[in-house]
């Protein structure tokens, strides 16, 4: 077993979120009803899951993005720093708020999200980001990043710069891609090397195309790999000349939160190791399985050993 600590530097752009996870006896939320909270936890959400998962696999993870000078955003960044994520690319805008999501979870496992995007003046692509980009081995962004009004343009510019410099760019559209403009989608497709998405998200980026055929269509716009995430059924990876499928690991599903973010970190880790696509798919699925069998997000994303234990249990021989 070898640990490649610090070998790869991976940059995540945007989607810096403070998740406030609030456990209450019952939903729905009703007027004038006072409920005592059973548990409260603050976790870095969104890209925070990706960044922590990547750090745990031994990669050097850098966060680019923007938060406000509020307590929730700062607390989430402090946790990322404690977890070993480099947050020097995080721009703190005074007198603005951070993207904050309050997740109300009831005893029956139902949840609602109360949230707000952080808003502030538009960010010009900082020189420090350009310098850091040149030192990185991979760049990751997602559809939520494009919904951060102050950040979207700088994020797309950074992705384009990385792509031009030959640094692989990974993009996960997520459900929020439905709110992206056609210009943003074109820019993403031009700049991305790898698209990671669910089947439901294929039409959002392909303007109507569905299934494996729709996903294959993405390859004609620039990306050279498309990975379709199929939850318990594993994933399919498409390139110009191959399509490989890995069925996933049959673990007990407890909580799917942050599974996609963790999957993306594992995919990039495996990709950078230059493993075969079969191995990339198996490893990413193992991370996804390791996540869904445990509850939580942020600091609850799987450790390298938890991924390893899935691989061992199913006799998959991947050493890292």
């Amino acid at each position, binding site marked *: 077993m070898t640990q490649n600590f610090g070998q790869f530097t991976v940059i995540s752009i945007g989607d810096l979120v403070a998740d406030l996870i*609030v456990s209450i006896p019952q939903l729905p*939320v009703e007027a*004038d009803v*006072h*409920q*005592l909270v059973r548990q*409260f936890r603050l976790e870095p959400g969104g890209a925070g899951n990706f960044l922590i998962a990547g750090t745990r696999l031994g990669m050097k993870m850098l966060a680019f993005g923007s938060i406000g000078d509020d307590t929730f955003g700062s607390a989430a960044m402090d946790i990322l720093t404690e977890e070993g994520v480099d947050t020097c690319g995080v721009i703190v805008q005074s007198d603005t708020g951070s993207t904050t999501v*309050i997740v109300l979870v009831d005893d029956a496992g139902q949840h609602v999200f*109360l949230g*707000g995007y952080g808003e502030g003046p538009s960010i010009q692509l900082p020189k420090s980001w350009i310098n850091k980009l040149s030192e990185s081995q991979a760049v990751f962004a997602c559809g939520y990043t494009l919904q951060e009004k102050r950040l979207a343009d700088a994020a797309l510019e950074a992705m384009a710069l990385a792509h031009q410099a030959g640094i692989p760019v990974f993009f996960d559209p997520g459900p929020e891609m439905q709110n992206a403009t056609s210009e943003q989608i074109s820019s993403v497709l031009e700049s991305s090397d790898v698209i990671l998405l669910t089947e439901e998200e294929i039409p959002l980026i392909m303007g109507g195309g569905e299934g494996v055929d729709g996903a294959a269509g993405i390859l004609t716009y620039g990306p050279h790999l498309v990975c379709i995430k199929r939850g318990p059924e594993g994933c399919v990876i498409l390139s110009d000349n191959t399509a490989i499928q890995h069925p996933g690991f049959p673990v007990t599903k407890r909580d799917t939160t942050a599974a996609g973010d963790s999957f993306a970190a594992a995919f990039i880790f495996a990709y950078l190791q230059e493993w075969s696509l079969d191995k990339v798919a198996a490893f990413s699925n193992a991370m996804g399985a390791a996540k869904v069998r445990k509850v939580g997000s942020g600091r609850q994303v799987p450790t390298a050993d938890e991924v390893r234990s899935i691989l061992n249990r199913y006799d998959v021989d991947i050493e890292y």
Partner: protein
Amino acid sequence: MGEIALFGDINVDVLMAIPRYPGPGEDAMATQITLQPGGSVANTAIVLAKLGAQTRMISRIGDDRWAEIALQPLIDSGVDVTHVTRDPIETTGLIFIPVVIDGERTMFSYRGANLQKSVAEIERGIFTDVSLLHISAYNFLVSPQREATWRAVELAAETGVGLTMDVGVEPAVHAKSDLENILPGLSILVIGFEEAQLLINAKTPQDAVKEFLDKGVQLVGLKLGRDGCIIASQSERFILPGFEVDTVDTTGAGDAFCSGLIYAMLKDMSLSAGGMLANTLGALATTVWGGGPVLPGREEVLEFLSKRLEEFNEVEKKMWAREVIEVLSSAAV
């Protein structure tokens, strides 16, 4: 010199303005998320300090960034926070309050470090130079805060310190036996009619007041919302209608009302003047957004009652208002 010690929660209120309440699986994007200092007893402490009373807070907060938001307004108002301790693990109390556009609100309370105040922290020295101890009935809901509160109540009784209590809905349901045990020893009970019904099955406000007095409470302040309040002792009873004001937000109104009755007892004011002070504070608290440091104090009460003095038709009301003005004017701040 502490005239009053207050034992209860210090919180940070997280107010979220949302367009509507979402159903399970749905989301609601907040147009604004703001943090404000909160906690019912902390609010009462701030108002008492702003009235000029020597005020001492007994509580527990986290060792985190929310602690400063919660604590600073108390310090700025002049509240003695020597007995507010820090919990190394638990978070400062956070109350999540989604507010929809039409002003309806709901609350999710994470009481965090507040609940960790333990018996070991309640020592006799807390009651030096104190004549009243104020507690929240919420203190009886969870251990070890519950046991710590009982210890404080015992020490107060041993040292001749009077006891005052504010009751909310949850304790009226879930801490009934504690509350029944504590009623006979109360100098002041502040309670809403809804809570009173839950606690003692009273049919009318007058029945509730009578029953509490029969149980041994010396002074009952029964809150009737917009209809004002009933203030009653064993020998006197006043029904006081609320003041007409431009209401912005009702946060902290009950806490401010409570401060009025406590202050009146500390200063030996008449029952009626105490009721007028409590009603004034309650009304003024609704004219500002939020609780904590924006709640009214001595200056706001003096200005309000001085302006209203000539508008009172009843001679009694003029007398009560004059008494409040006189006491507040002569009190050293």
